[in-house]
């Protein structure tokens, strides 16, 4: 891990650790719930990718915009969303952050600047570009960050966003989380060249970063977000990572052909961003093992409380299923 990260004050380093662990423990809970048949609908977990959302969102305020994806629990929590209301949403409860109208793929808290979590792969790219235009016109230094996958990088709208973003110097940070797979297709089988290079013809800086190194992500995002805030225009960050769980929970029940080697998964587990950062903190004597244990316990308690809240929340009223299509229905 990068030594320059030590420039960060200790409490901020520990906050990065705490946030990654919170995402991890919350999703381990969801994995269990899913296996127990408690969760309606598909669930895509972020396990192994936590360093990206946390390292990027550490630079953002509530007023900054992000767009998220079907694999969005990590973005939601990293941007400051409430865990209990996220779980309630995934359980399909009225107290959910979207009242049970969104579910796992769409957890979004607009008051935290989250402009939706998209079930349409690549669907957030244009939204973030539009939010960046609004931010630019506001003229107060806000930025828009778009999280998307390597699969989404193959949607044509990425080229459109790079073109307009560069042309208008929009305060936009495009964060491609290359986790090795586009659903069940290994990235290399559906992606030509390197994603990070796709920025170059538009004159947009492209930065490749180890997505399992929270400090490396933090540093890349630091440069990109500052550049955007200062009017320097967009940046494309390609964060290399790996999805250690399935594309979707339950996938082993319907997948007929294995799409990866177990050895590969194990190799990446050894690079898990969370224990990796823990060792780094310990080796640099920035935290004691007691301190990390205390964080782990606090996180476990937070998750347990959130689960209690979500599980005891009532289901939505079916009489209200028509929901809020319009501000003014008539």
């Amino acid at each position, binding site marked *: 891990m990068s030594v320059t990260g030590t420039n960060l004050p200790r409490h901020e380093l520990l906050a990065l650790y705490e946030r990654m662990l919170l995402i991890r423990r919350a999703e381990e809970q969801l994995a269990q719930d899913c296996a127990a048949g408690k969760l309606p609908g598909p669930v895509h977990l972020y396990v192994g990718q936590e360093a990206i959302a946390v390292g990027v969102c550490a630079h953002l305020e509530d007023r900054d*915009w992000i*767009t998220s994806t079907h694999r969005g629990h990590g973005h939601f929590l990293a941007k400051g969303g409430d865990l209990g209301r996220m779980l309630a949403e995934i359980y399909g409860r009225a107290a959910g*952050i*979207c*009242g*049970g*109208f*969104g579910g796992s793929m*769409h957890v*979004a*808290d*607009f*008051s935290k600047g989250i*402009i*939706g979590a*998209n079930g*349409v792969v690549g*669907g957030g*790219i*244009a*939204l*973030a*570009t*539009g*939010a*960046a*235009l*609004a*931010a630019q*016109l*506001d003229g107060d230094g806000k930025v*828009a960050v778009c999280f998307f996958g390597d699969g989404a990088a193959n949607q*044509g*709208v990425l080229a*459109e*966003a790079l*073109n*307009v973003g560069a*042309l*208008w110097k929009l305060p936009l940070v495009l964060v491609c989380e290359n986790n090795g797979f586009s659903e069940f297709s290994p990235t290399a089988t559906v992606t030509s060249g390197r994603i990070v290079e796709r920025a170059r013809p538009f004159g947009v800086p492209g930065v490749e970063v180890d997505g399992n190194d929270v400090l490396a992500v933090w540093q890349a995002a630091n440069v990109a977000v500052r550049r955007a805030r200062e009017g320097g225009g967009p940046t494309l960050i390609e964060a290399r990572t790996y999805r250690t769980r399935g594309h979707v929970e339950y996938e082993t029940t319907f997948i007929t052909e294995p799409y990866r080697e177990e050895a590969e998964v194990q190799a990446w587990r050894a690079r898990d961003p969370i224990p990796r950062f823990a060792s780094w903190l310990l080796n640099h004597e920035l935290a004691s093992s007691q301190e990390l244990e205390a964080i782990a316990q606090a996180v476990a308690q937070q998750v347990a409380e959130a689960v209690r809240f979500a599980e005891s929340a009532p289901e939505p009223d079916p009489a209200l299923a028509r*929901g*809020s*299509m*319009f*501000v*003014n*229905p*008539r």
Partner: protein
Amino acid sequence: MARKRLIQAMNEALFEEMERDPAIILFGEDVKASLFGDTKGLWKRFGPDRVRDTPICEALISGMAVGAAAAGRRVICHMMFGNFVYTGMDAIANQAAKLRYMTNGQIKLPITFLAVSGGGRSAAAQHSDAIHPVLANLGGIKVVMPSSPADAKGLLKAAIRDDDPVFFLQAAGRGGEPGEVPEEDYVIPLGEAAVVRPGREVTVVAIGSMVRPALRCADILAREGIEVEVVDPRTLVPLDRETILGSVRKTGRLVVVDEARDTCSFASHIAALAAEQAFDALRAPIRRVTVPDCAIPFAPVLERAVLPDAERIAQAVRDTLAFGRSA
């Protein structure tokens, strides 16, 4: 009142609203040059921050409209021709129409999409679709179809002031049509149909571009002693069911005219509503006058053959009146 062309009325609405509300921005392809005349002069008056030419990238600009609206702007997004809505469709169908619902009302999206819709100009199959049934079926998009300059101005202002995504569809080739437009600032609320010509015997509901041939048909039939009531829904979403059904209950006969293809035309929806909710009042089967299920052809004679006109409407009216009269 002053006599103005429809496109001028739209242009005035845009000027007045952008003057009134500095949060409004407008963008699209060649809005500065203004292909149709609706956005003429806006760039000069309001500058490049608020009025922008975009590259040709409908998937992006429709999505940017959603993102910028979510982030606090009031957005006018010009999609040029209705057929180009298809290349920008994800952000319209999956984002604009869904984001508010799936966040349980957390996000409001004040967007007016402008597009020219329909045929009649030998623009051929890829520039002539009447796209309103597609849009109306999305559920989360309001759909406005003005048929006169006065309505165009009042409805466009209402669309811009509305906090929801609205598609404002200008009938292709009708921008030059003149009409009396009030001088004062006025708004025509979305969801209010107009009875554009009262009559006792047959209700003709005519959508958008079809209002004019329907009125011509009413003139023709008046000479035959037949009294036709012409109803213009003006907005399809929200739809003023009361006015439409009220007219049907009064006349007992219904003809619906729509420039959409027959299968799943909006006329089908209005016919179904009348059949479900005013069946007891109907004295004859409902007739729909639509475009056959083919693409819109190029050659003027071919195009005229598929688009509804006053004579086809008149024949449908005569048919409903003949029902049950002779053996």
